[in-house]
């Protein structure tokens, strides 16, 4: 098949050899699970359970709120200890509303597969069930998957692309999943394809994962419905826009989603979760997590219930060999720095990295020498050095005019910068400032409306009062009038 490639990108050291040959192991069920109510993009879920209540494995804990939201389910049977604020897996460790479950020592047996054939279900029902199972994009973006599966007559999907590229260094969770459970993934892909009524389904795997490619190709041979293709290894191949460009040759226009050009992208982990949801009626309550980094004693992939804390994963992998220079959730390029290990695994956590000092290139920032390497590396076709210089001087309009909103935050520019300028940090700062500006504008507009509504209300009340006074005066006058006729001679 002809491939098209994308501009820019980098080749960071893959560092996948630590974990790619070790089988996935199941993390023993922790004593307590900390399940945040906001694990996805969109509105947080609303708790449906109360402290003290006993829940079964897979029971609904919190209902989704609105169209772009996802419910949360119990990963194991247990008693709810509290619903309270706990540190979120976020660079600041700010609190997030969390359901704390004390798990039972004896877990009920796993659910039996459902006998119903999901291929007979209408697409809308599949989307509904995927939504009810709380499935979100497992590649890290955590966008509710049901929204992408919902049939949209205005934008028919002709090509489904399943993202098996896993371009982030260190991470091998998708790789191991493809090596160990290829039939389930192929089944999930066929189900997504059925839901979307897409003509083509393409599974794209980077060429640095030959074992996964072989396993998936073998599994796909039986059904003929899925094309498994090899794509070159280049970061950020796994980013939606770059993957669509590589596979179809079409560029997603500014401000649009892949649906705009009839393409839909899902991650292999999502396909696996959809298979589990439709075949065994299991909600999304566990995921595969890569635990790696120079400071971890036995790096490997774990199947982890949502809500297990990072320290439990690290302990199971033999603990730390040295104090980590940096803790990261996700990959080293786009992952988030974690404040400590007492934060939980959430639906979008693809990896936990405890990086040692020699893996972190953290020198002082030096002046820009205008070498232009960041421009060559930027897959979005932007001018990172120019935007960074503008943001250094808080020229937000200048940065916006150069397209800082189109930055995908992949980190290629910061990676290649010989002066170690934190370019992506500047762009995150710019995006935050732009967001603040939009919110301020919306608020001032809203304030004006409120002030106007109040003055209208005051005027209305004054008018009502005046009317009431007039009425009273009139009735008083009428009351006074009766003696008048009595004066008349009888």
């Amino acid at each position: 098949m002809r491939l098209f490639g994308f501009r820019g990108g980098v080749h960071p050291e893959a560092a996948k050899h630590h974990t790619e040959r070790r089988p996935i192991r199941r993390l023993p069920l922790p004593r307590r699970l900390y399940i945040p109510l906001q694990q996805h993009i969109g509105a947080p879920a609303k708790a449906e359970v109360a402290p003290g209540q006993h829940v079964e494995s897979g029971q609904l804990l919190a209902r989704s709120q609105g169209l772009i939201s996802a419910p949360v389910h119990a990963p194991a049977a247990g008693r709810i200890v509290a619903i309270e604020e706990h540190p979120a897996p976020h660079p600041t460790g700010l609190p997030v509303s969390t359901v704390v479950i004390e798990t039972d020592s004896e877990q009920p047996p796993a659910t039996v597969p459902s006998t119903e054939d999901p291929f007979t279900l209408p697409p809308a029902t599949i989307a509904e069930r995927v939504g009810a199972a709380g499935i979100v994009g497992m590649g890290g973006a955590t966008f509710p998957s049901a929204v992408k599966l919902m049939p949209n007559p205005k934008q028919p999907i002709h090509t489904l692309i399943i993202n098996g590229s896993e371009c982030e260094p260190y991470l091998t969770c998708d790789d191991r999943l493809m090596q160990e459970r290829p039939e389930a993934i192929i089944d999930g892909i066929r189900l997504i394809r059925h839901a979307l009524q897409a003509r083509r389904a393409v599974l794209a795997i980077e060429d640095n994962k030959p074992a996964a490619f072989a396993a998936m190709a073998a599994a796909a041979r039986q059904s003929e419905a899925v094309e498994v293709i090899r794509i070159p290894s280049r970061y950020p191949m796994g980013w939606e826009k770059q993957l669509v460009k590589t596979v179809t040759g079409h560029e997603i226009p500014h401000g649009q989603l892949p649906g705009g050009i009839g393409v839909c992208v899902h991650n292999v982990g999502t396909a696996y979760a959809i298979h589990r949801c439709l075949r065994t009626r299991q909600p999304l309550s566990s995921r595969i997590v890569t635990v790696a980094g120079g400071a971890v004693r036995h790096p490997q992939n774990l199947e982890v219930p949502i809500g297990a804390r990072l320290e439990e994963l690290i302990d199971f992998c033999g603990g730390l060999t040295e104090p980590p220079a940096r803790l990261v959730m996700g990959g080293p390029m786009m992952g988030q720095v974690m404040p400590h290990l007492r934060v939980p695994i959430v639906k979008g956590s693809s990896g936990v990295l405890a990086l040692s000092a020699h893996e972190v290139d953290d020198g002082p920032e030096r002046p820009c020498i205008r070498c232009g390497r960041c421009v060559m590396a930027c897959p979005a076709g932007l001018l990172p050095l120019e935007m960074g210089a503008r943001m250094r001087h808080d020229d937000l309009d200048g940065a916006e005019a150069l397209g800082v909103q189109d930055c995908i935050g992949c980190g290629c520019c910061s990676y290649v910068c010989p002066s170690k300028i934190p370019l992506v940090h500047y762009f995150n700062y710019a995006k935050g400032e732009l967001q603040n500006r939009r919110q301020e504008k919306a608020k001032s507009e809203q304030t004006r409306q409120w002030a106007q509504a109040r003055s209208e209300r005051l005027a209305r009340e004054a008018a009502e009062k005046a009317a009431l006074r007039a009425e009273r005066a009139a009735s008083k006058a009428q009351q006074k009038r009766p003696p008048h006729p009595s004066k008349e001679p009888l």
Partner: protein
Amino acid sequence: MFAAIISLALLGFALGYLLGVAAIHLRVKEPEIIQELEALLPGTNCGQCGFPGCPAGARALAEGTAPVTLCPPGGKPLAAALAAKLGVEADLSELDDGPAPVAQVIEALCIGCTRCFKVCPTDAIVGAPKQIHGVVSDACTGCKKCLGICPTMGIKLTRLQPNLATWQWPKPADANSQPESQQAVRDDDVEAARDMMEVAR
């Protein structure tokens, strides 16, 4: 007598007509900039700028008698927008970046007198007589009108702590703007240049 009445009446009508015509044709148009500035201001007429309401504030801005930083509830973004509209350079460094502070009822002091929500220009305070009042912080502009009217001084301004939805990345610490590091670079450069000169000799 009739002649006097008729002549004065005619004179009155004629002059009145003239005045009416003059009011239409010789009207002094309010500059559009005032309306544009007024549209930017919050419109709550809180009076913190020292002018009687937002329209008067906008007029003062247009005349140049008020600085662009006049509106405390608008904060830095409004000051920047006004400066851009008026085409002036403004020193915004003294305004703080953070979210504008909002009113908060100190529940131990609130006696439920309802005075505060009667003056709130955006109806951001809710409550009932003899019940503790509360502030809808999304609607509060921090205009301080309620602060002065509270008989028990039971309202204070507080800054909302950022949460996961409102937190944004701060500006990266700029190593190059620190004078020490700049000095270090310069010293290195000087030394390197000296070495090169010596080699050349």
